[in-house]
C-alpha cells in the first residue's frame, strides 16, 4: 500500500472520528434532556405533562422509523440551510445528529426508568424540588446505564458515519466505497474494515470501563 493511500486512510479516520464525536456531543446535548423529560413526564410523574410526553414520544418514534440512508437524503434542504452545503463532513453531522438525538433520548429514558422509584420518594420526603431530584438522584444514579447507552450510540454512529460516505459525506465509508469498491482495491477495503473494527472495539471497551467506574452497585455475578 503506497504512502499516499496510508495518508488517505489516516485522513479518512480523522474525518470519521470528527463526525462521530461532533454528532455524539450534539446528540447528547439535545438527547439527554429529552430522555430525562420522556422518563419523568408521564401522568403522575415528577414533571407530569402527559400531552408533551406523548407528542415528543411520537416524534422520537417517527425519526427512529426512518431508515438512516433515507433520512440523510430527505433532510438535504435542512442540511443546506444549516451548513450551506450537503456535501462534506460538516454536512454529514446534521443527519448524524438528527439520528443520534432520538436514539440517545430513548437510551437515557430507559436508564433513568431503571432507577428505583423508592429513591424518588426518599428525595421527595427530603424536600427536594423536581429539578434536584433529576440532577442529584435520577441522572446520577443512572450514570452507569447512561454510559453504556452512549457507548451503544457511538458504535451505531460509527456505522452511520460510514453510510453517509455513500451520499457525499467523507470519512472511512467514503474511502471504502470510492477506492475499495469502485476502483476495486481490496486492500483499501480491508484496511477500512479493520480500522472500523478497531474503533468499535476501542469505544466499547472505554464505554464499559467508564460504566464500571460509575457503577457502585453490588457485582451481579459474585458468589456463583
Amino acid at each position: 500500500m503506497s504512502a499516499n493511500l496510508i495518508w488517505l486512510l489516516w485522513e479518512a479516520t480523522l474525518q470519521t472520528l470528527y463526525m462521530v464525536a461532533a454528532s455524539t456531543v450534539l446528540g447528547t446535548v439535545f438527547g439527554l434532556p429529552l430522555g430525562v423529560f420522556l422518563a419523568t413526564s408521564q401522568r403522575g410523574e415528577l414533571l407530569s405533562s402527559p400531552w408533551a410526553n406523548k407528542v415528543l414520544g411520537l416524534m422520537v418514534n417517527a425519526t427512529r422509523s426512518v431508515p438512516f440512508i433515507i433520512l440523510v437524503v430527505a433532510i438535504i434542504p435542512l442540511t443546506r440551510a444549516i451548513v450551506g452545503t450537503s456535501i462534506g463532513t460538516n454536512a454529514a453531522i446534521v443527519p448524524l445528529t438528527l439520528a443520534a438525538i432520538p436514539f440517545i433520548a430513548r437510551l437515557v429514558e430507559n436508564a433513568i426508568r431503571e432507577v428505583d422509584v423508592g429513591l424518588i420518594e426518599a428525595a421527595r420526603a427530603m424536600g427536594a424540588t423536581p429539578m434536584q431530584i433529576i440532577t442529584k438522584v435520577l441522572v446520577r444514579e443512572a450514570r452507569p446505564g447512561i454510559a453504556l447507552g452512549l457507548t451503544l450510540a457511538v458504535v451505531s454512529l460509527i456505522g452511520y458515519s460510514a453510510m453517509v460516505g455513500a451520499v457525499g459525506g467523507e470519512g472511512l465509508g467514503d474511502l471504502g466505497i470510492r477506492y475499495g469498491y469502485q476502483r476495486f482495491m481490496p486492500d483499501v477495503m480491508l484496511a477500512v474494515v479493520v480500522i472500523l473494527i478497531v474503533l468499535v472495539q476501542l469505544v466499547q471497551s472505554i464505554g464499559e470501563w467508564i460504566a464500571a467506574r460509575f457503577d457502585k452497585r453490588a457485582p451481579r455475578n459474585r458468589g456463583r
Partner: protein
Amino acid sequence: MTGNTAADAAISFEKVGKAFAGPGGARIMALEDVTLHVEPGAICGIIGRSGAGKSTLLRMVNGLERPTSGTVTVTGYDVGRANSTALRAIRREVGMIFQHFNLLASRTVTGNIALPLEIAGEPADRIRARVADLIARVGLDGLAGRYPAELSGGQKQRVGIARALATQPKVLLSDEATSALDPETTQTVLRLLADINRDLGLTILLITHEMAVVRDIASHMAVIEGGRIVESGPTYDIFTRPTHPTTRSFLGGVTGLALPAFIAGRLLDHRPDGPSEEVIRVTFAGNHATDPMLSKLAVEKGIASNILAGAIEEVGPHPFGNLLISVDAARGAEARAYLEQHGLLTEVLGHVR
C-alpha cells in the same frame, strides 16, 4: 394521643379520609374518619395488616399523600393544604426512613447523609461537620467512605436514620424500617431509634405489621383495620386490655393470648350440663406480674388451676403476663373474684367439658 386536642400534638389527624379512584370510576376509601394525636416526644406505633391503610396514613404526615377530607397537621403546619414551597419546608422538619432503605447506590455513606443538606442548600463546610456528627451518632464510625453495596442491612438502615436526622427534624416517620432486617439487627435498630427519641426529644411515628416492634419501643399505639383506627392509646393499656378482635389477633403472636388448638376446637360458649372447666384468660400487669398468684389461689382458696398457655412479656419497662388457665366451672366465679381482688384482669373465654 391520650389528649383530645390537636393544639399541643406534634402530629394530628382530624377526621382524615383518603379516597382513590378505583377501576371504573369507583371510589376506594383507603382511610376513613381517622382521628389521632401524637404528643411531642412520643413514639407511636401504628399496626395493621398490609392494605389496612397504614402506609397511606404515614405518607400524609409529610405530604407524599394528601387527604381528600379532614386535616393533617404536623408541628402546627396544615400539611394537606400546604403549597409545594411550604411542603418542602415542612419536609425538612420531618425525617423518614424506609423498609428498603432507599439509599443512593452511587453515593458513599457520607454522600447519602449529606444529600438532604445539599438539597436544603447548606454550605459545604457545615455539611461536612454535620455529617461527621451524624456518622458518630448512629455508630457508623470508619464506614464513611463505603458504598451501600458494601454495607449490611443494619448498617444501611443506620445510614437511612442518619440521613433522616440530617436536617434536625422534629418528627421521624418510619415506614416498616425493620421489616427487612433479621431479629437481632431489628433489636439494635430499634434501640437506636429509642435512644434518638430520648436524647433528641424527637417524635416518632412508625408503621409496622409486627407487634414485637410496637411492644419494644412504642409508648403509644394505634391499630388500623380497613382504613379505620379501631383501637388506640398507651401501648401498655392496649397490651393488657385489648378490646378489638384485630388487636387481639396481633397480640396473639407475642403474648400467649391465642388458645392452643387442642382447646380452641373444643371450646363452648355456654357452660354445659355436668362437670366442666371454665377457660379464663388472666392478665398480670404492673407489680402483680411477678406474684405467684396461682399458687396463692390454690393455697388460700383450695382451687386448683390448669395452665393451658402463657407468657410473661415486657412492654417498655413494665412486665406483664397473660395466662390461659382452666378451673372447675363450679368455682370459676370465686376464682375470678379472688384474682381480681389482687389486681389481675380476668376474662372468661368459654367452657370445655
